[in-house]
């Protein structure tokens, strides 16, 4: 059998494949974070809570309204986006002119409120969301058995990431959004409703977090705390990619998944900390991140 560093090649390939699945989640989450930071300058610490909220929305939609997975895939992000819009109008818009620290603290408080409320309403033990009928079963890839659902996650993530990248970097809407960040007052004088644009951006970022939550719901247990440890990892991904860089967030999200997957084989205990080591190295050597502009 072919081996790399004493590990059979098939095992490496299998682990890399799983790393790619995790990378797909990271990419989706860091994409939302990068959109919010890049266009609004807010470090959204509530991202993990919004992710959990998306998963809960899907779960409750199924339990209370009988909505299936495919409906939830659209409905849950939409519901969370409305909530995000409301939060932006009520709270977040007051901190744009302040140093980024305040936006971070505000969203951190928001995250505690959301997670605490979910906890009080639904308890800590969580609930399971079934894998949709059409995506059950597994493919035999030769070197591993890949559940179809995991394959779907990779596909969905890549499609959504490409779509968002295209909208922001290549369309008129995206150009307007970027202009709002550069000079909101000027844009306002051209008759563009800038406050609405900001609210929509936060709503959109929240929807991306919620979408990741719905995608994750059939794979992991849905609990109030499911996103709380994720948010600093994802934030590290955004920093590595270069804050505000959409492409950077996507590429480093996928890349981190792969590196983490490899770490899980050679030094599993460190798989949670490797991202921070990479972030420290990147920040020291290349302060603006891999794809950021100095």
């Amino acid at each position, binding site marked *: 059998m072919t081996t790399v560093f004493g590990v059979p090649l098939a095992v490496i390939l299998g682990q890399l494949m799983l790393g790619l699945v995790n990378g797909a989640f990271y990419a989706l989450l860091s994409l939302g974070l990068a959109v919010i930071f890049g266009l609004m300058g807010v470090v959204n610490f509530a991202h993990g809570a919004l992710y959990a909220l998306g998963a809960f929305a899907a779960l409750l939609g199924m339990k209370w309204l009988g909505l299936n997975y495919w409906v939830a895939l659209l409905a849950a992000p939409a519901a969370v986006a409305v909530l995000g819009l409301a939060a932006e109008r009520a709270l977040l818009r007051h901190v744009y002119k302040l140093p980024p620290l305040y936006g971070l603290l505000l969203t951190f408080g928001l995250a505690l409120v959301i997670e605490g409320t979910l906890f009080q309403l639904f308890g*800590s033990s969580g609930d399971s969301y079934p894998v949709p009928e059409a995506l059950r079963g597994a493919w035999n890839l030769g070197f591993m058995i890949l559940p179809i659902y995991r394959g779907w996650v990779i596909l969905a993530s890549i499609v959504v990431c490409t779509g968002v990248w295209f909208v922001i970097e290549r369309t008129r809407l995206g150009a307007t959004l970027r202009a709002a960040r550069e000079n909101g007052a000027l844009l306002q004088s051209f008759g563009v409703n800038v406050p609405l644009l900001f609210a929509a951006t936060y709503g959109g970022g929240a929807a991306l977090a919620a979408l990741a939550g719905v995608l994750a719901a059939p794979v*992991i247990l849905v609990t109030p705390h499911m996103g709380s440890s994720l948010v600093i990892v994802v934030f590290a991904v955004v920093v590595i990619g270069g804050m505000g860089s959409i492409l950077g967030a996507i590429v480093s999200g996928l890349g981190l998944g792969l590196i983490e997957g490899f770490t899980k084989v050679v030094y599993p205990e460190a798989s949670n*900390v490797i991202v921070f080591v990479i972030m420290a190295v990147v920040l020291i050597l290349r302060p603006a991140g891999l794809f950021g502009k100095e």
Partner: protein
Amino acid sequence: MNRTHSALLSFMGIAALGGCGSALGAANEVVIGDIDDLSGNYADVQGQGGIEAIKMAIADFGGTVLGRKIVLLTADHQNKPDVGASKAREWADQNGLNMLIGGSNTGVSIAMAKVAGAKKVPFFAVGAGGSSLTNEDCTPYTIHYSYDTTSLANGTASTIVKAGGKTWYYITADYAFGTQLQNAASKVVEASGGKNLGAVRAPLGASDFSSFLLQAQGSGAQVLGLANAGEDFSNSLKAANEFGLTKSMKPAALLAFINNIHSLGLKSAQGLYLTTSFYWDLNDETRAFSKRFFEKMKAEPTMDHAGVYSATLTYLKAVKAAGTTDPEKVMAELHRAKINDMFAKGGYVRADGVMVHDMYVMQVKSPQESKYPWDYYKLVKQMKGEEAFGPITGLCPSARR
């Protein structure tokens, strides 16, 4: 006299008045303190339900003992040892704490046990697994109730090895509790003639376990030992199912509660072996208690809920029998009396503080076998207390006398 002086003087006056404020708990009360995780990951295992169960026990006992009113204090330790320990110390110093109960987290429980030992307050550790509580970290005032890592490992591991599951691979939560579980199980596996093929240490709170499972599968072991708890346990079992591992390997939980099984669903959990000290559907007595509990909490009790109920009753009975709340005398009575209630039959507190009672090795039913809500377990083996908790190790100095 200037302003500073007048302020100074009035301040001292207040100070003198305040000096009279502190008073120990009134002599006509018996104070029970419950410190537990009310807002974190273990909150559903004990938490608010545990408080309800203690209240039930106090009410069932009549609300008074030796003519003194029974008072319950509660606090959330937030899984921080400093909060748990300082709360326990404060109650002991200022509220006349007579009995401490709870824990749910080994690190916090050890810190609480040290305080209780120093302050001579009987401490019923319920919900913390670490058997170090009755070994290197033991005190003469700790009673380890409900379960510990030794009894869980003995129950699950020895039963599975005897049923033919000879080779084991572990997914271990990378912290002291996970290590204790794995070590306890490994010893049992070897002693029963099985073999340990290896383990992978997964960081606490890793959301994706598929990669660790793939390594477990590569080992070719027959049994997948899950040396983790709570969300880690649920997520690793869920992924094992998704990747079809449960077809080739037998999953074995080294610590699972009924609320974990409830949230996972039988589809994912079916066939799992686990050990528990209590199951609501064992007999009429357990069903009667559970029915009352269910009416309050809308969930069947975990073994910790039943454990705190039983522990509270046991303590109150001991106080009644000893005729005093004097900690030495109550501890002597606790070490002497047999415990007979809906939780334990013929249970007793050993010299090292372990409450020895029968444990139940269970297998989770398949969805077809389950006939009514919460009908989750079938009994594989009722294990005698002596077998489950093993001999006294001698690591606890107060048990050596």
